[in-house]
């Protein structure tokens, strides 16, 4: 699903009309400047109105949109000399999670993230960003490596969830996620996570036991998909849009619930409208947090992370 399918519809219609007027005015040599100015102002207003008042369900759509930037896009934009590293050293290189090393400005970092595809072919290769246990084990390997060499870890979260198939169960999907939660909580380096699209349940949390968790403005993070919850509650997946409204899955809901630490601004209309702008915001956030942790003692880094999760739900 492309992000401009539904939400953008009135906006695109208006944009097209303005183009038409411009063309007309040029071709027929009629002065339509007043009309064009009026329409442009209207467009501007409409954009604000639509994009700043997205419903949770519209945000679900936006967070999953096929043109929404992925982990790779942000790595390209914020990281220099990135080298992707592969494999869990046990069974497979799971392409639904990527990871590697590089610099953000002058700081060496390890970056790990769920990776969706840009088209059908890549999505099949990457299993639509739904990892098998191998993906979590690769992530853990790279995190331990980061710890050894004292590099901060950045994780990008963007998955419908961990994959639910025979092989995934056989090879211990539950164990793999559990082990990541367990081990991440003890890592002797800061971990900074950013939900950039879908934060789908345990499959998302498997990269998310971090010192700081931020969300892109229009991303979501939830224990189950709205469709999943609708079919459990009302045996009717089509009620997902209603369900989304009660789920508290938007960045502002999660900020209020003190589950996340920061909302990172997206451009009007969503991250895909201006990847550079979104990346700049992400990069600034990361650098700010890296600086925050720079002179912290290891014990404090670990205990801050512990306390963060220890008190979620308590502080409401």
């Amino acid at each position, binding site marked *: 699903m492309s992000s401009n399918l539904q939400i953008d519809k009135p906006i695109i219609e208006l944009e097209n009309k303005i183009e038409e007027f411009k063309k007309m005015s040029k071709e027929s040599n009629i002065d339509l400047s007043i009309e064009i100015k009026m329409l442009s102002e209207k467009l501007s207003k409409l954009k604000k109105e639509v994009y700043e008042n997205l419903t949770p369900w519209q945000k679900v759509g936006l967070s999953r949109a096929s043109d929404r930037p992925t982990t790779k896009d942000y790595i390209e934009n914020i990281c220099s000399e990135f080298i992707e590293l592969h494999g869990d050293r046990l069974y497979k290189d799971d392409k639904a999670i990527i990871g590697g090393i590089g610099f953000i400005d002058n700081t060496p970092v390890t970056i790990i993230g769920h990776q969706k595809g840009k088209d059908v072919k890549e999505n099949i290769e990457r299993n639509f960003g739904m990892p098998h246990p191998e993906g979590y084990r690769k992530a853990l390997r790279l995190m331990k490596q980061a710890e050894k060499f004292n590099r901060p870890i950045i994780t990008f979260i963007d998955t419908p969830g961990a994959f639910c198939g*025979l092989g995934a169960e056989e090879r*211990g999907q*539950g164990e793999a996620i*559990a*082990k990541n*939660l*367990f081990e991440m909580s003890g890592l002797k380096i800061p971990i900074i996570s950013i939900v950039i699209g879908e934060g789908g349940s345990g499959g998302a949390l498997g990269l998310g036991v971090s010192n700081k968790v931020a969300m892109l403005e229009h991303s979501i993070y939830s224990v189950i998909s709205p469709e999943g919850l609708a079919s459990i509650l009302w045996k009717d997946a089509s009620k997902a849009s209603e369900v989304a409204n009660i789920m508290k899955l938007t960045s502002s809901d999660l900020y209020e619930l003190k589950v996340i630490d920061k909302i990172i601004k997206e451009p009007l209309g969503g991250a895909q409208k201006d990847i550079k702008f979104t990346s700049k915001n992400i990069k600034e956030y990361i650098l700010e947090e890296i600086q925050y942790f720079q002179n912290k003692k290891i014990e404090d880094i670990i205990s801050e992370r512990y306390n963060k999760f220890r008190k979620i739900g308590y502080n409401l």
Partner: protein
Amino acid sequence: MIKKLLNKEKEYAKVSVNKNFKNKSVDDKFWIKCTSCGSNIFKKEVEENLNICPKCNYHFKLPARERVNLLIDEGTFVEIDADLTSINILDFPEYEEKLSKYSAKSKEKEAVITGYGKINDIEVALCVMNPDFMMGSMGFIVGEKITKGIEYAIENKLPIIIVCASGGARMQEGIISLMQMAKTSQALKKLSENNLPYISILTDPTTGGVTASFAMLGDLIISEPNALIGFAGPRVIKQTIKQDLPEGFQRSEFLLDHGFVDLIVNRKDMKNKLYKILKIHGC
């Protein structure tokens, strides 16, 4: 010791097993039909047999309170945080009603009992999930009580045993429920760094967020026979792969074969096995 326990059946094994049985055609006041072997069995006989089918060893569900009695020396169990009850953090529709209903039905305030007690005189911390309370789902209070149980073990340098039984995260608590996975797992990491043993016991069913957190983190992982253990539930998997699941898929024996369970222990032998393991761990 186990023998002593088994002689006390009357005190702890009188549990309702009705909900475990599908076929109600026989007079279900006295007789039940085993879901596994199909035998018609005298209900009292099953109850007095720790909810195990005397014909085929099928392990029916055991309410949490009975499990505590099964594992812990008589009179030594001290429950902690017994009064903690869930609140409707997210204002989720009809959640309070649901909580009240399960509370009334199960006579428990939440889906887990936590505390400490003795196993043949060895002191342990113990958490037992209750499959009958909202399917043993993990909300804030379940996560909180288990975390406190772990923290109690750390403070008092005790081994901890967690008996898992859960349908997964509690949907009505949304993201807060998901975060209980992180909270409990990190507490276990702390326990582990204190070199205290954690024994995880998996019972039917152990799925979802519980499997993907503390259930799979035991230094030793023990399972009852034939328990369903998995991350995704069978129905979800079936929907995903659009075909039937192989016989025995996600059962204890399957997990043993695939390397995720250390040993399968019959309910009747569980206390004795735990005792031996604790002894070997110097407890």
